[in-house]
């Protein structure tokens, strides 16, 4: 049986159309002018026990709304949802007992208390017996090296250490499912790797189902065999991560700052690239941020070094960054039929 079963699930919000200015704000008080936002719009999915699923999509895609419905703090507008055979919103407290939640940027531990005291309080809250507690603390010690941090106040931990503590804490009561929301945000590469290995170990050892929301495709690639891409409240793709990474792993974006950038630079760059590499070259040009020109390259078709060399010779570039493809770009490509 699926651990999480979702069928035709929707959540619509009524939002007041606000007017501008003080007069508008006053008229809003008596306004009945609502529009409906379909945050989640008829999704269906099943998650099996023990899976790690990457749940991704751009901001406003409906990820948090779905998670809030799975965790029982939001009631769906329509459709069915069951977690562990139960309707989550019917009993928030019962639901909380079988799940763990971690937010990337905010700790759920007690800010002023030493780490070990937070764990002891959680032991009481979730009614974890002493033997289980000791066993789990040993696992965390082996994976994370938690003992070293026991006496430190949570507020004095580094972001990475805190994240490791938060993740460990979310597994303490042996939950059926753990929701990890942006667990590696703002962390450097070595800590990211550590967190990924800890999460994958905990999943392996405990068999806990993990639902991971992230903007970092690297997290998904390292942890999840399955990926669900969401946009505008609908599921765009639900399938093996391999399929997505084999496609997008090849993409890199060159971010360029070009001297004397003006209205004609972008089109002239496009033309010259097309002239040099041909029309169907897997190179696209866009300018999303001010000052930066983005050149996205499909390395399977055109080597990045060739494009970079060509641009450096042709344009007065004074700064270059190479970044992995962004989530927004992936979604855009999926729309354009990349996974079709």
């Amino acid at each position, binding site marked *: 049986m699926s651990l999480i079963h979702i069928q035709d699930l929707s959540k619509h*919000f009524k939002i007041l159309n606000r007017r501008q200015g003080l007069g508008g704000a006053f008229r809003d008080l008596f306004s009945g002018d609502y529009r409906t936002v379909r*945050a989640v719009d008829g999704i269906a999915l099943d998650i099996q026990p023990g899976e790690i699923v990457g749940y991704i999509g751009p901001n406003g895609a409906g990820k948090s709304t779905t998670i809030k419905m799975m*965790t029982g703090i939001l009631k769906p507008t329509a459709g069915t949802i069951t977690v562990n055979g139960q309707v989550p919103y019917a009993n928030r407290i019962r639901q909380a007992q079988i799940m763990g*939640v971690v*937010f990337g940027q905010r700790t*759920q531990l007690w800010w*002023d*208390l030493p780490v070990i005291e937070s764990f002891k*309080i959680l032991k009481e*809250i979730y009614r974890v017996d002493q033997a289980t507690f000791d066993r789990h603390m040993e696992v965390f010690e082996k994976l994370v090296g938690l003992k070293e941090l026991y006496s430190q106040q949570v507020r004095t931990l580094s972001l990475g250490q805190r994240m490791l503590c938060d993740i460990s804490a979310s597994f303490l009561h042996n939950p059926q499912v753990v929701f990890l929301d942006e667990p590696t945000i703002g962390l450097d590469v070595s800590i990211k790797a550590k967190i990924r290995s800890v999460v994958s170990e905990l999943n392996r050892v405990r068999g806990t189902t993990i639902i991971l929301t992230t903007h970092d495709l690297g997290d998904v690639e390292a942890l999840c065999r399955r990926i669900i891409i969401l946009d505008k409240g609908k599921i765009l793709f639900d399938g093996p991560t391999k399929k997505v990474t084999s496609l997008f792993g090849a993409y890199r974006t060159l971010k360029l700052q070009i001297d004397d950038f003006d209205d004609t630079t972008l089109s002239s760059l496009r033309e010259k690239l097309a002239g040099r590499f041909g029309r169907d070259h897997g190179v696209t040009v866009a300018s999303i941020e001010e000052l930066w020109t983005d050149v996205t390259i499909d390395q399977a078709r055109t080597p990045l070094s060739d494009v970079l060399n060509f641009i450096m010779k042709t344009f007065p570039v004074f700064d270059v960054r190479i970044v992995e493809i962004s989530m927004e770009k992936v979604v855009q490509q999926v729309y354009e039929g990349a996974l079709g």
Partner: protein
Amino acid sequence: MRTLARYLRLYFIIEAQYIKARMQYRADFLVSSIGMFFSSLATLAVFWILFNSINDLAGWTFMEMVFIYAFYMIAISPMQILFDHFWQLRFHIRQGTFLKYYFRPLNMMFYYMSEMFDLKGLTQLLVGIGLLIYASTQLEISWTAARVILLLVTLFSAALVQVAVVLIATCAAFWVVDSWPVLGLAWKLREFAPYPMSIFDGAFRFTFTYIIPIGFVAFYPSQLFLRPEQVSPLVYASPLIGIALFALMYWIWTQGVNSYTGTGS
């Protein structure tokens, strides 16, 4: 009953740790306690100055005023000590940090309020108890067992009224972006509580009795001990008023908690 015992146990575990952590900042604890001590006495100084030029306030003597004030200080202490986290609610709500309170298998108000235990409020409680003993000795109130029970019951219900009034105002944060005016008003109004309601004009007295019933925080219940012969029947209903207000407050809190997640992204 088992739930209650579990929550009590949890509360002691959390607060013991919290107090231990606060005690590491000894200077902070000392300065805030001393500050609380003097601000508790400030209102008393106002009475003292006032009674240098007048003999009574709407028929109430200086020592009776001290008694009412002492009752008031004890009655507001539970809010100060146990519910002090209410100040932060509007920030948690605006910044989205309130979300974490949904994810534990606990009553949310309990979990939220347990994160703060205001030690300096203990100073206020002790000053209040000291003043109450002093004033009742001076006024020669005889403390029979029945009176002591009555005192405890009325203090409890007065504390409920105080908590309810302030928390209802706090809950405005669930619906209003800048809820400070509402909370500020409720906070300011409680300063009228230790005065005889009879000094207020009709409209104010009506408000403080029936609409924002801060009269029930100190003045009305104090009458049971100071002028039992003058007490209006409504005062005997004060435990019911306290419980009803607290229930109303909890209902509003629940509505707020339910509506809050509805608007998040």
